[in-house]
């Protein structure tokens, strides 16, 4: 079971590039790690650390103000590419609970909703403004309120966002989709009987 989604207030960590792919978020050589392994330690591994293991100083996750950030800011098409849910586990494991971006890789956004990592779509100009604010004021805090479906930027401006009502309910109450679907067992069985009759 997932933990119920909290009202989030945190510094916002900017990853200010378009088309950041899930191979960057979690490199393929960590894909075999067990679900309960420390995926957070592998987050952005090859951008965050030099080959010798030392930190890349100016990478956002290594900036002192942003180390404990729970909200990420991204560019267009954030987390495109591979379907690896491990990319979500890495962001969640590191402590992120929401990513605000103009658009997302489809599969990543779905994976996020099922793992307590909320994808928040805001207009590109709003996200660009929030990234500029984060860079100007690294300690400025952002609020993501899933109940109210609003983001409060560091400058206090409020921005509404859309989210699937069912996913929102699952996140807020910490329930998962599988239980809901299993409760519709009879509908699925009826469909299977029809399928058998139509022979396809």
């Amino acid at each position, binding site marked *: 079971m997932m933990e119920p989604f909290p009202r989030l207030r945190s510094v916002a960590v900017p990853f200010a590039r378009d088309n950041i792919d899930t191979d960057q978020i979690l490199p393929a050589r960590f894909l075999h790690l067990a679900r309960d392994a420390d995926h957070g330690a592998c987050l952005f591994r*090859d951008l965050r650390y030099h080959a010798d293991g030392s930190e890349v100083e100016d990478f956002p996750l290594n900036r002192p103000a942003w180390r404990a950030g729970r909200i990420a800011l991204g560019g267009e*098409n954030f987390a495109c590419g591979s*379907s690896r849910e491990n990319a*979500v586990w890495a962001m969640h494991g590191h402590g992120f609970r929401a990513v605000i971006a103009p658009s997302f890789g489809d599969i990543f956004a779905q994976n996020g909703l099922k793992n307590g990592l909320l994808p928040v779509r805001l207009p590109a100009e709003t996200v660009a403004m929030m990234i500029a604010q984060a860079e100007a004021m690294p300690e400025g805090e952002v609020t993501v309120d899933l109940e109210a479906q609003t983001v409060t930027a560091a400058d206090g401006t409020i921005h509404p966002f859309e989210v699937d009502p069912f996913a929102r309910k699952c996140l807020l109450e910490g329930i*998962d989709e599988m239980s809901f679907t299993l409760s519709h067992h009879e509908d*699925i069985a009826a469909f299977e009987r029809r399928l058998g009759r139509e022979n396809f």
Partner: protein
Amino acid sequence: MNPEPRTMFEKVWDRHRVLEREDGQTLLYVDRHLLHDGTAPAFEMLKARGQKMRAPGRTFATPDHYMPTDTRIAAEIPDPALREMVLSLERNAAAEGFALYGLDDPRQGIVHVVGPELGLSQPGMIIVCGDSHTSTHGALGALAFGIGMTEVAHVLATQCLWQRKPKTMRIAIEGALGAGVTAKDVILHVIATIGTAGATGHVIEYAGSAVRGLSMEGRLTLCNMTIEAGARAGMVAPDETTFAFLEGRENVPTGAAWDAAVARWRSLASDPGAVFDRFVELDAATIAPTVTWGTSPQEAVAVDSRVPDPAAAPSPGRRAEMEEMLAYMGLSPGQLLAEVAVDRVFIGSCTNGRIEDLRAAAGVARGRQVAEGVTAWVVPGSAQVKRQAEAEGLDRIFREAGFAWREAGCSMCLGTNGEIGRPGERIASTSNRNFRGRQGPGVRTHLMNPAMAAAAAVTGRITDVRRLMEAG
């Protein structure tokens, strides 16, 4: 009254609707669930809930991601963590009773090569797999898309999946493809044209005379990289090419059932007047053999071009992005791509690991030698492709030219089995993603078609294969 004209996608979608949810999502029934050796966490999720699989008879598995391509014996995998990925798939298959084409099975291979090859993937089906390149199977007129691990667990337990209905996009490619231009060049050109997020939220239907003229292998390549344009799924309407490809394959109906199936499949094509949300039209004649220069599949240009100049970028953000890519790739603005030396060549993957791909590469390798200092691998997409290539003598051509001839698997496409390049190495690759570090930390990837990759192997640099073809 005539029913509303529907697209092929809508026909497949409508037929699989189990029920609708208040928020507008639809529960879809899954005909085929394909599994690979990265699926262990989904079975853990199932066990944690005390659930069994709902429909093991609709589930088919084969190890591809974690198996080294120099051995077929799991016990020989040196890394115990990787070995465990392969073994856990075997244990789950035994416990749950689904079909497994294991390492010792003549049907093993990359799951997206095996599905069509065994006739498991058929027109009109919904096919899912925990891998983004599941879009491949849409080439047969199926609705096929990649899903995450939690969704895999959901399908294991319910044989269904919740989806919001995507939008539709029709990409028509008209005219004849030029010499040396393949489906790989077409899809790289499409991605370069519409962008890596150009089709996000859409299902693409590929149409037009150039698509109709593609072989089944070519259509599989085209649909395979649809995810690189942001779309979850790509489809091609089934036609005589599709039926000829499927007839006689292991899991395809025979006799009267085959005739009935073909009749049903013929009715899948989009109705005249069906409405798509977006249209794109491309002229096949403008497509050249294409190669990527950057770290996203959209950064693709004709092989006879120069490396683009960030100074000409339309925005400061784009300029910074291009500069980062060139720095990573070790390229200079204005440099001729066809002068760039390569260290390795990888021919294979679910994009270009089928028999036609190997024939094209062998055609270039025949009578030539891999350039000094270049390591060149051919990794067949499946054990069946490997056997067929050997029957045709392609393995001998490759070996004599100095290529390594390996066992089937994903291999260097993503390197989860440990097969990666060294930092700084440059790879001419027939795979699907040139992301930073995709083929190993610090490795530089140039995507291209199989004949171009073979040409790079024998010349030691990125090469316009048309020049070699002229030379004969």
